[in-house]
């Protein structure tokens, strides 16, 4: 942090000012002039919270994508299909057993198994051929999309939120002061907050696993130099399978989360593939903290954009990507 400020004082200043402005917008009571200019504070706060929680979902999808890319140099364009598959599995399990928690576990295991099969049967045979692997993932995504359309049809599905998570919760954030002097607090759906907290926990667990454990050390070494790692006697194929399973499983969990937040239908796979692409391009390929930062930025941009400039919301997301590519092509938090 201190080094960053030393090296890029101008950027650090811009970031600090932006954070300060955001904090003021979130915590202060808006003066009437501001409300007249850009609308109610409640709308803004809802958009911010929606953006951050959507960022949590994007992080779940993109972290698996970036992990797989970082270690195996495999741009898995079937990642969106894994997401949708996990969502359908979660839907099936939760309607069948009625258990929301169980649907996460089953979705993780099922999609991780698909990942293991993919790695063992397909990608292992074409190691080091980046382009061919990517082409194969494109073919797989078409096949998966059609198979899922076959089984589940074109309907919209929504995973049932468990009863103990339904309903709003009052947050200690002021939206306005009533004329009687009584403060008005923000109401926000509990389930989104819980899911966001869960994705933060998963993110921290991943960071700890990568930075504090032996297997994490091996994975990090593999990201840096795969060949030397293999030469030191590590069973790299096993690590590959494990990482692919973890990445795919995370996509599966994200599918259940997305199915609860939003809905599942054909086409969602491309949407989340695009989201994870943009997130990892912005955050930096192969970097977990980068995926987290990129996910929050993109989630916020998408939600604030759709509130304040509805017909150009996607352009904001896209402009962020262009800006990052122009100023820092390797992504915000990538080392190379």
């Amino acid at each position, binding site marked *: 942090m201190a080094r960053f400020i030393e090296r890029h004082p101008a950027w650090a200043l811009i970031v600090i000012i932006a954070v300060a402005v955001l904090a003021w917008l979130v915590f202060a009571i808006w003066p009437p002039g501001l409300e007249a200019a850009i609308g109610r504070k409640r709308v803004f706060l809802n958009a911010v919270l929606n953006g951050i929680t959507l960022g949590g979902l994007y992080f779940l999808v993109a972290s698996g994508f970036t992990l797989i890319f970082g270690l195996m*140099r495999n741009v898995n*364009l079937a990642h969106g299909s894994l997401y949708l598959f996990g969502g359908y599995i979660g839907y099936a399990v939760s309607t069948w057993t009625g258990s929301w928690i169980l649907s996460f576990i089953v979705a993780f295991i099922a999609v991780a198994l698909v990942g293991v099969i993919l790695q063992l049967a397909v990608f292992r045979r074409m190691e080091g051929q980046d382009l061919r692997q990517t082409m194969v993932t494109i073919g797989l995504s*078409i096949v998966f999309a*059609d198979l899922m359309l076959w089984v589940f049809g074109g309907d919209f599905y929504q995973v049932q939120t468990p009863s103990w998570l339904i309903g709003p919760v009052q947050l200690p954030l002021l939206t306005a002061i009533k004329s009687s002097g009584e403060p008005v607090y923000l109401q926000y759906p509990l389930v989104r907050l819980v899911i966001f907290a869960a994705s933060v926990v998963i993110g921290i667990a991943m960071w700890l696993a990568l930075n504090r454990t032996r297997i994490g050390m091996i994975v990090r070494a593999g990201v840096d130099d795969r060949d030397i790692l293999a030469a030191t006697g590590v069973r790299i194929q096993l690590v590959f399978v494990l990482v692919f399973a973890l990445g795919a499983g995370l996509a599966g969990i994200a599918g259940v989360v997305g199915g609860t937040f939003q809905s599942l239908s054909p086409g969602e796979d*491309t949407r989340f593939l695009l989201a994870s692409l943009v997130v990892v391009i912005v955050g930096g390929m192969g970097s977990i903290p980068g995926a987290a930062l990129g996910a929050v930025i993109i989630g916020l941009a998408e939600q604030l954009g759709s509130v304040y400039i509805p*017909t150009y919301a996607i352009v904001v997301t896209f402009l962020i990507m262009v800006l990052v590519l122009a100023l820092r092509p390797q992504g915000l938090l990538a080392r190379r």
Partner: protein
Amino acid sequence: MSLLQSTQFRPDPSANATRRALLRTWPEFQNPVAWLVALILVIMPLIANGFFLIEIFATTLILGVIALSLMFLAGYGGMVSLMQLTVAGFAGYMVAVFGMSGNANISLGWPWWLATPMALALATLFGTLGGALAVRTEGIYTIMITLAIGAAFYYFTNQNWAIFNGHTGINTVATPHFWGVDWRSDIAFYYVTLGVAAICYFAVQYVSRAPFGLALQGVRDNPRRMAALGFNPNAHRIAAYAFAAFIAALGGVLQVWNYRQISPGSVSVGACIDVLIIAVVGGITRPIGPFIGALIFVLLRTFALDVLIKLGLDGNRFRLLIGLGFLAIVFWSSDGVIGLWERWRRRNASSTQRSGGGRHG
């Protein structure tokens, strides 16, 4: 051909040299199969009826032109760009926006001879800018950035009502009508697409042998060495994107004239990937590949339903068939159908050589 042969009788060395130079530039002129295919394509309206002419052959040529632009980038530049269909779709949208269409509140109503060059120029600019972004990173990143551009454009057309008219798109786009000919009538339109496809094919063929194309192939194989030799790799790449964008834009203009409408569905991510499939299935090593791939794709798309039902299977599984076929090609023949054909011919040639006892040697 006969004209070229007649020059042989004259003892003029310079004419002979010109002829050799011409043949070196265009080796196709010596290939009888190429002449046969060209002849069949030219007399096609005598053979095929309106449905085949437009739905199969004109569609094939249009998709082939768009895939050709991808083949140029991927085959000679080593850059797999998934946004070529997006560039084409952008050109189509621009034709609809600047020209005349059923949505009078959006279309500016320019005549076609003004709207089309405008659309071509804007789409080329769009493709060049996208390329300039994509070349900032290397190799495998290209595919992601171009896919992100394509997907962003698709969602943008869906969201934006002021220019792109949201998900309904722009309908009943006017087609050119001059010299007393309706250029969208079946036979005239077929010849327009054939002409454009031929020009694009020969342009790519020519550029691939011109100094620029050779330098581009050098950049593809070893950018650092080319930079050391004094070439600017990124400038060559961006120029390649510009050239490919122009070809894709031509395809896009033809496509919007063909369907007379354009909507976000025409620029969807699936459609972008279809173009990649067409190019890869046909083969990205030679300009003829995309056209072969497009023919296979269009035939499958048109007849898979009937064939599948006749075989007692679910007719809706057309995309599954396409996906599996694409996977098979990627697995077993990295240079597509052309590669399969060439390998088959080589094996045949080597077997006849063995039996003929070195007759060819």
